[in-house]
């Protein structure tokens, strides 16, 4: 929820003098001229922001920001749709891409001037590269791609952006939109996800995308079996990786008659017997034992006691930050199976941790 907070403001240039003196920023703006000083804008009367009689949360706008937006207010009022208006809007977007109106007005101008939407797609690609975590830029891209009805470059483009930050929520959400809106784009998605998981096995976004792809394909038992093996492999590489464990639990949603549970149970037990104590492993074992118990036979009572031992181990040794949580899970199990006497009580001092 905080994505819109940081990156745009750090990048928007609020200092005009910096533009003039810093050669590294010299991309044509070293000779920047205020709109009010441009002869070709002489015919336009700028419109100042009208904040009313009492001002609150005022912003100390830079001179450049006020200048650009005073002229922007003027042309949107007069309704001018021209080449120079488009340039002005481009400047306004650079200063504040989080302004909804500039985007809506830009699209109006683009359509009115019948500008080639492929050029507009190039433009928005560059803006997104600069403001990767702004909401409006992605929404605008969606509009353009919808109008072009051509998603051919979209997977490659989002892959580029994910190359900068493989967990960029905006990019993933957009990529899913492209895949669900246009057909035939899902074919290579599993390979794409595979690469990302190989690069960073903890990339939860990539694991989520894997589930998204598998889920969309209406998987049969063979596919799920393959996924199970894939996930076992990945867990063995890094047993404390929550993303892989969550994915494993997600696969269990496809289970019929507990067949998958048996395989997962065997896998977990072997891992445990080898001495592994990943908190996610123990947590998974507790759930599996809980499901497995269906009688009050001695064997089952032992299983329940083992689950209680795992809760106690988690609370005191392996996952102490969640001591209260494990005490709660433990007491749920006690109550469910009416087991009052056991050696694995978790004591919580003063109702806290």
């Amino acid at each position: 929820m905080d994505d819109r907070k940081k990156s745009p403001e750090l990048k928007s240039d609020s200092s005009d003098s910096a533009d003039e003196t810093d050669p590294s920023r010299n991309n044509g703006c070293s000779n920047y001229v205020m709109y009010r000083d441009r002869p070709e804008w002489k015919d336009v009367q700028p419109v100042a922001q009208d904040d009313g009689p009492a001002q609150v949360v005022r912003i100390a706008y830079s001179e450049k920001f006020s200048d650009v937006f005073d002229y922007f207010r003027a042309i949107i009022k007069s309704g001018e749709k021209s080449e120079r208006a488009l340039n002005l809007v481009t400047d306004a977007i650079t200063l504040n891409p989080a302004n909804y109106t500039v985007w809506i007005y830009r699209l109006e101008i683009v359509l009115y001037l019948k500008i080639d939407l492929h050029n507009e797609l190039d433009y928005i690609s560059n803006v997104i590269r600069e403001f990767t975590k702004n909401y409006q830029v992605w929404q605008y891209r969606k509009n353009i791609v919808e109008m072009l009805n051509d998603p051919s470059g979209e997977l490659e483009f989002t892959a580029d952006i994910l190359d900068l930050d493989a967990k960029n929520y905006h990019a993933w959400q957009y990529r899913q939109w492209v895949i669900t809106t246009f057909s035939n784009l899902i074919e290579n998605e599993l390979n794409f996800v595979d690469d990302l998981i190989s690069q960073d096995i903890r990339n939860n976004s990539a694991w989520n995308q894997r589930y998204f792809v598998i889920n969309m394909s209406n998987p049969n038992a063979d596919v799920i079996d393959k996924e199970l093996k894939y996930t076992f492999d990945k867990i063995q590489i890094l047993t404390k990786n929550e993303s892989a464990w969550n994915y494993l639990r997600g696969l269990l949603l496809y289970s019929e008659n507990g067949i998958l549970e048996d395989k997962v149970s065997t896998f977990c037990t072997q891992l445990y017997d080898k001495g592994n104590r990943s908190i996610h492993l123990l947590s998974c074992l507790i759930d599996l034992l809980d499901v497995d118990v269906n009688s009050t036979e001695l064997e089952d009572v032992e299983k329940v006691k083992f689950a209680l031992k795992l809760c106690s181990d988690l609370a005191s040794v392996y996952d102490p930050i969640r001591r209260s949580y494990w005490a709660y899970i433990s007491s749920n199990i006690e109550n469910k199976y009416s087991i009052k006497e056991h050696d694995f009580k978790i004591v919580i001092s003063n109702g806290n941790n």
Partner: protein
Amino acid sequence: MTKPEFKPEQHKKYFRRSLDLLPGESAVFDYSRLTILYFALIGLDILDGLDSLGDSRKKDIVEWVYRLQLVPSDHCPVHKCGFMGSTTVIHLKNHPNRDKFCESNVAMTYMALCILVTLGDDLSRVDKSAVLRGVASLQKPDGSFKSNYEHGESDLRFVYCSLAICNILDDSSTINVNNAIKFISNCFNYDGAFGQNPGTESHGGSTYCAIASLSLLDQLNSVLDENKSKILERWAVNRQTNGGFQGRPNKDPDTCYSFWLGATLSIMGSLNRINKDRNRDFVLNNANFITGGFSKNMDSIPDPMHTCLSLCGLSLIGEEKLNPINPSLNITVRAANYLKQIQLRNM
């Protein structure tokens, strides 16, 4: 490690400064200054610092907010009505044929109503019918809501804002509640939490939006059966890492998630399952003792959103000297009680 100390006065000063003048780097909030106002005022209310503003300042703020309201007219169709986030294009209000560029935004309407209630306004100048019809016009066939009418994006954030507006105005007859619930339920993921849209990754912020929405509708149990509640609870408590909360698995903790996940767990009645002391330490270690305010992590500077949400998070876990909050509406309990009074008066 020594226990960090909580110093409320510094944060009151931080908010009072934000209410007055923001530095030029904040220009990216030019179009949504109302959000800064919201975070500053809710934050001040939690700090019990609203009185320090004085009555005339409060009145000024109320007037400034009401100026952002768009009401039906020849130049403003009802589906554009509600509140704008700033005065950036307020000059187009009542200008012929410009409603496309001068329209309300559902997040801004939600925050405007929260601000007004927090400042003790009785909402009598809100055109309720227009606001409610405006919200209804943003609902899509899948049950979700757009942020605004023209090319607005849609996701759980705007579902939450829309439902909160209906809750505050005590009328959900203009929207399709069942479809909204269906949409929320479609955002539930295999790992036990909610993404912004169906299929997208589970996220602390969208999970809050889902749970708070359902709680406002009193429909928590219709989407979350016992098993789903159980895995959601596990997902949420697992977000606590290094003391603070992260928004997604394998990401770094950030102070705002002490609210997004704290409030989620609070609504579910499960907040006692986290380690409150370590959560408190994490948040307080991100307080800035020079400027006041809280940052999202050690590498950042304070901002109004993280300051407000840090205080919300601290209030949820019972920090002394802080007023309690209503986790579903994200205003103080005091303001929520006042809202109840207004609603009863209008019945």
